[in-house]
């Protein structure tokens, strides 16, 4: 949760930041595109990870918000020529409306029921996108979506688009960091730990959870907008359940209870995907095995390595959450 602990770390972060900013000057276009993918999936992972880590809610609807934003951009931008930034704002607005609708229902539930209801929401969105041919063109989706040109800067160019994405990502991470430190963030942590006590203290637990769900949905939506601009296409595959599971795995891979966990997990997962698929067509099997190994040996995520070097850690909230889930099922 701490951005920098000391001067040395500050220097390291400055170097990392510099390397990221200068990336298009020393890396090939494919590498830059891969980083763009890390950024938009990173937004989605932050969305999922914030709900798990801060609020103790495992939501399987976040990918639907990602896709919804993409579809709105496609429908309004590519098909109806609505200019930037209006289509983007409408996309975020649509995400907020859908998140509020789902949130008002889902936040009445907890734990396993919450998981199931968010799974149902996600599946409804996917089924609708796939079966609706009049508006969303079924499985074919919407094609030919291009990023805008703003103030003479053409964001169709990979490096420009990368810089814009990087800036938005940095901003998003900074805001999330502020949120985590705020009274709202602490209240969310309280709800994660003991919702009944929070209610007894007089906190509006239901509304705090709804607001957290809205914020997380916006992060997924921003990721969806960037993804759609980058790939130029939005199809039901984008919001398929396998994508949802993949994002969940990325978050667990990095460490859901760590602030940087979702980002680190995304970076590792996307690069694994790229590197292993170059070597074998059975890359999904290899990635699956790697995931199993990580869950077995680093159940609290890759970032727990750094932690266990520092101190003898205790059970993470996520681990306890999952343990409790298993206990609930019995």
């Amino acid at each position, binding site marked *: 949760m701490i951005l920098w602990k000391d001067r040395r770390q500050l220097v390291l972060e400055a170097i990392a930041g510099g390397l990221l900013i200068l990336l298009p000057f020393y890396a090939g276009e494919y590498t830059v595109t891969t980083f763009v993918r890390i950024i938009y999936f990173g937004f989605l992972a932050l969305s999922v990870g914030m709900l798990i880590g801060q609020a103790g809610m495992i939501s399987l609807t976040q990918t639907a918000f990602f896709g919804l934003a993409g579809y709105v951009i496609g429908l309004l931008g590519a098909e109806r020529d609505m200019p930037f930034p209006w289509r983007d704002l409408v996309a975020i607005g649509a995400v907020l409306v859908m998140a509020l609708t789902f949130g008002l229902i889902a936040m009445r539930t907890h734990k396993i029921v919450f998981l199931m209801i968010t799974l149902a929401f996600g599946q409804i969105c996917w089924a609708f996108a796939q079966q609706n041919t009049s508006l969303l063109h079924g499985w074919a989706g919407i094609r030919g979506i291009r990023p805008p040109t703003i103030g003479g800067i053409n964001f169709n160019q990979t490096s420009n688009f990368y810089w814009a994405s990087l800036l938005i990502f940095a901003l998003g991470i900074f*805001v999330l960091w*502020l*949120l985590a*430190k*705020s*009274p*709202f*963030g*602490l*209240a969310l*942590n*309280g709800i*994660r*730990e*003991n919702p*009944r*006590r*929070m*209610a*007894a*203290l*007089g*906190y*509006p637990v239901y509304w*705090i959870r709804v*607001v957290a769900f809205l914020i997380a949905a916006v992060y997924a939506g921003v990721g969806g907008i960037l993804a759609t601009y980058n790939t130029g296409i939005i199809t039901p595959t984008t919001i398929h359940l396998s994508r949802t599971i993949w994002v969940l795995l990325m978050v667990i891979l990095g460490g859901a209870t760590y602030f940087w966990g979702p980002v680190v997990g995304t970076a590792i997962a996307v690069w694994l995907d790229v590197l292993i698929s170059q070597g074998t067509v059975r890359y999904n099997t290899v990635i699956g095995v790697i995931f199993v190994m990580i869950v077995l040996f680093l159940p609290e995520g890759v970032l727990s390595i750094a932690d266990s070097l520092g101190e003898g850690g*205790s059970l993470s*909230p996520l681990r*306890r959450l999952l343990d409790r889930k298993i206990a609930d099922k019995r």
Partner: protein
Amino acid sequence: MATSLSRNFGGVQAVRSADLKVPVGERRALIGPNGAGKTTLFNIITGELAPDAGKIEIFGIDITKKTVQERAKLGLGRTYQISQLFLNLTVEENLFLAAAADQGMEFHFLSSWRVRSKLIQWAHRSAEQVNLTPYLSQRVSELSHGLQRQLEVGMAIAMRPRLIMLDEPAAGLSPSERLILAGLIKGLSREVTLILIEHDMEMVLGIADWITVLQRGSVIAEGVPSEIRTNQKVQDVYLGTIYA
């Protein structure tokens, strides 16, 4: 304060028109054998159970129909028999959440909670009152059971209530931990009224100014500790069963 309260569970009358009047600043203990209706009466006052008949007032305000949260706003705090703490948060964060409960802080998004110096100060002061100052930055899950019980009382204090209901505060504590907790409860400001349910008679006799004895849902005796200790009726129904 509470007049002719009754509550039935199915065919069982758990509380039968019990009356309880506690003056401001008093330390009152509710005692009685198992099934006497202490916890039921307690939960009716805190608002977790609704009475079937009767009326509850605190500080002159009728709260019979009010929710737990509304009662909390009127100055009613409570502790739980089984600790209800935020285990993976620090002592300071726990106390802050209690101190900030009625401050409308939860929808402040972009400023750190650590800059709320007034609330932090309240949290620290409650930590001091329950001897937890050295543990402020420790996670609650790392504290001993005794310290967690102290924090449970600290959480109630941090909400700055005028009436604290203590539900078996010493549950599961060792004799030495009981002594510490009893000393700390005795040391609480007299501006706060205390109502206490406790099985440990020594603790009750040490803390309470006035004791109400319940049996089968009715008040059978009231008085100062020395009276209760020698009351034949009380010895028969309660003390006798323990100290026989």
